[in-house]
């Protein structure tokens, strides 16, 4: 007989007028993995934050081991054996792994040796690997996650909550994590994993609880359901999960990057001998672990990042001429039709000004065109109206401040504005970051339409499944170097995952890798 670890009854939480959770019920047993599935903004994280003591519910009961519990702070949560691994890691960058692990733990003794020994014991039991003395800022994302998990286990948690743990991991790292989670389940712990990736739900969990817009929809056994049924529960209507992909039109060269290398302020190499071409009418995907140089590469093309070596050539489809982008200003590059829409982690940081309304944000790209000393608001307003209608942006009006829109709508405005300029090269970095399924598919369709009309599309994505379905070719980047270029129609997630983590490459076509290594690493 399964023993329930946590039961939630009628949990409600509101933030001002926004209802984050309404009357949610949930239960998880020891020795079980429960997935909580829902689109972004469906209240998954808020719900878990109430169990881990970050938020306090407005109404409802939390039962732990069958007894009612009041969790007012993270400390209370620990005392009930609850540990949460947050999506945005809760780690202190300048501390070592060991210091992070013992942080806030109330014990009189503060002895490095015993801590190291205990950490090692936990690592051995579940198959982790971590250096207790390594500083967090020197760690990779997956190492940081390992520290987070050990931190929770060190405190003796029996109920583990993981918020989107695979969002930042490669497929191989994900498999490793899942193996660890299964081992924990077999050791009798209760594991809750928050995700919006269906295949993970199906491969890992025993049961699934689905939330939609803050409401509890239902709980099903994983063995008795499938992707379509879960999507329907999650979205509330039938959704087709296929991205259409036509063969690329023509193969006329549009952009060529040659031996691109660049260094950051401290002299560390960010990009090394990058070389590739993009054709008109195709979508080139770029895959890689976050921070491998994707941003710098796109910014170099857009003229925002200086590069020390290499060249970027643009083949103008209108005039047929070849232009070098190296000495052009970002403005000149944009006028050639090379457009970048980059969605950073905070979603607003680049390209839009949060406190300005939609019309003014349209004007950011067009105000230079006017001849009169006064601003012309008419055209931008028409454009804003068009974008709102075409992309189904839900907003009270064109004069609503952008920061007041929800994340998905902000991104539609950003992508819509760049596409409206009729680009010839369109770079979209993380355009679906944090979007729900419906909005994501709308963006994919937009990209496809651009491809149809002969635009060279560069798409930087996080979700490998989408990259494989959407793109024609996929360029894989690992620590600033190209580690592979694959045909998206004949590749697998595993192949790309392996390429993502591979650091040593076969020598680049023109300059031998060894030469640039000497120049590149001053350390």
């Amino acid at each position, binding site marked *: 007989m399964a023993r329930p670890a946590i039961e939630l009854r009628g949990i409600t939480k509101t933030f001002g007028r926004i209802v984050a959770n309404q009357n949610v019920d949930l239960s998880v047993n020891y020795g079980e993995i429960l997935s909580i599935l829902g689109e972004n903004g469906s209240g998954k994280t808020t719900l878990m934050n109430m169990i881990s003591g970050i938020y306090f519910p407005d109404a409802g009961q939390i039962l732990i081991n069958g007894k009612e519990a009041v969790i007012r*702070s993270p400390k209370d949560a620990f005392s009930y054996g609850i540990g949460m691994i947050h999506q945005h890691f*809760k*780690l*202190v960058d*300048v501390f070592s792994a060991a210091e992070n692990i013992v942080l806030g*733990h109330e014990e009189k003794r503060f002895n490095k040796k015993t801590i190291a020994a205990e950490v090692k014991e936990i690592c051995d039991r579940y198959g982790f690997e971590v250096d207790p003395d390594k500083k967090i*800022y020197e760690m990779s994302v997956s190492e940081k996650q390992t520290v987070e998990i050990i931190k929770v286990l060190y405190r003796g948690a029996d109920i583990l909550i993981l918020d989107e743990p695979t969002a930042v991991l490669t497929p191989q790292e994900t498999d490793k994590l899942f193996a660890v989670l299964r081992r924990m389940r077999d050791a009798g712990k209760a594991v809750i994993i928050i995700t919006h990736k269906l295949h993970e739900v199906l491969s890992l969990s025993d049961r699934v609880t689905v939330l939609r817009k803050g409401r509890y929809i239902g709980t099903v056994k994983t063995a008795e359901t499938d992707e379509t049924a879960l999507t329907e529960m999650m979205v509330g209507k039938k959704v087709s999960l296929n991205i259409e992909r036509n063969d690329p039109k023509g193969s006329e060269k549009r952009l060529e990057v040659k031996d691109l290398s660049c260094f950051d302020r*401290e002299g560390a190499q960010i990009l090394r001998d990058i070389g590739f071409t993009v054709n008109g009418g195709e979508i080139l995907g770029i895959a890689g672990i976050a921070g491998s140089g994707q941003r710098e590469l796109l910014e170099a093309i857009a003229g925002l990042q200086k590069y020390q070596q290499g060249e970027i050539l643009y083949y103008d489809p209108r005039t047929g001429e070849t232009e070098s982008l190296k000495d052009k200003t970002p403005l000149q590059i944009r006028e050639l039709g090379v457009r970048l829409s980059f969605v950073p982690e905070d979603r607003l940081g680049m390209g839009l000004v949060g406190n300005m309304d939609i019309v003014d944000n349209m004007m950011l790209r067009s105000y230079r065109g006017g001849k009169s000393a006064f601003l012309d608001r008419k055209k931008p307003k028409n454009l804003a109206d068009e974008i709102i209608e075409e992309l189904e942006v839900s907003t009270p009006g064109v004069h609503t401040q952008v920061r007041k829109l929800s994340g998905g709508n902000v991104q539609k405005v950003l992508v819509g504005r760049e596409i409206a300029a009729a680009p010839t090269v369109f770079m979209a970095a993380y355009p679906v970051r944090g979007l729900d399924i419906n909005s994501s598919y709308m963006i994919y369709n937009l990209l496809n339409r651009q491809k149809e009309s002969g635009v060279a599309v560069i798409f930087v994505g996080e979700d490998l499944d989408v990259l494989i379905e959407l793109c024609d070719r996929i360029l894989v980047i690992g620590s600033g170097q190209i580690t592979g270029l694959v045909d998206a129609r004949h590749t697998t997630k595993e192949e790309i995952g392996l390429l993502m983590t591979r650091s040593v490459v076969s020598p680049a076509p023109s300059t031998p890798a060894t030469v640039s290594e000497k120049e590149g690493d001053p350390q």
Partner: protein
Amino acid sequence: MSAFFTQLISILTRSIANGMPFLYGSTGETLTEKTGHLNLGIPGIMCVGASSGCIAIAIYGRAAGGIDASNPFLCLLLAVLASFVGGILMGLIYCFLTVTLRSNQNVTGLALTTLGTGVSTYMISKVQNAEFVPANKFFTYSLRSALGENAVTDSWFGELFLSHGFMIYLAVIIALIAAWVLKKTRVGLNLRAVGENPATADAAGVNVSRYKYFFTCLGSGIAALGGLCYIMDNLNGNWEYSIAEIGWLSIALVIFTLWRPNLGILGSVVFGGLRILGNSNFIRGVDKSVMQMLPYLVTILVLVIVSMRNRKENQPPAHLGQNYFREER
């Protein structure tokens, strides 16, 4: 001993004495900043610390029938306690505004500086200078006077290290304890985490508000002692409004020493030395005001060097200046 050596020892001795008010200020401010709060009210707090201490001496003196008739230990104890408590009260105002009400730290700090200067002017106007100035002999009573003249106390070592009043040693002791707590203890670990990443500390079960209140107030109390030390030790009891300058320089010293109280001991001696240079015609032909800029110039120089090295450990606490609210979305 050559004349040069004698001169050097004399300057160093005065540097140490003149540096310690900075050390109080910077140790206090470091503890505060480690909680993620930038307290620009330190100059005001030091003013209040000095005036509270002086008032306590005056009141005690009246009760005892004159400073000279009083018990030196009790007199010192009361002065230090009053000064400390005065600082803590100022710290409480700052904490209530920035931690509980989450108002802007810079504005609050600057307001506190103005308030503190005003309050201390008012307080000091209520007593006669003669009521606290005589107590300076208790403050400047040195180990050397206690031990009497012998080979050790008479040597350069005696002058450099044994010729100071007790508040000079107290500053060093407090700085060493603060450094040890920050580096070696669990409390220090939690404290640093609060300033680096309060959300992380909170999720780890550290009571963020309690840490912020406790260490900001403690820091204010320690900084307040610097004001008292400056008036009663450095200036021999002569009330002067240059205390606020010491406060500003203390905040600069925090950056100069990379948020490390133990480095602060050295740094404060350097600042003390630069201050002596600023008040003397040490280099002929250079204007005094130019010399008085030296501590600030040195701080700017250090900032430049540190930002060039760009080591994570030498950076200010990551959340410095930002208030923390758990349920923020």
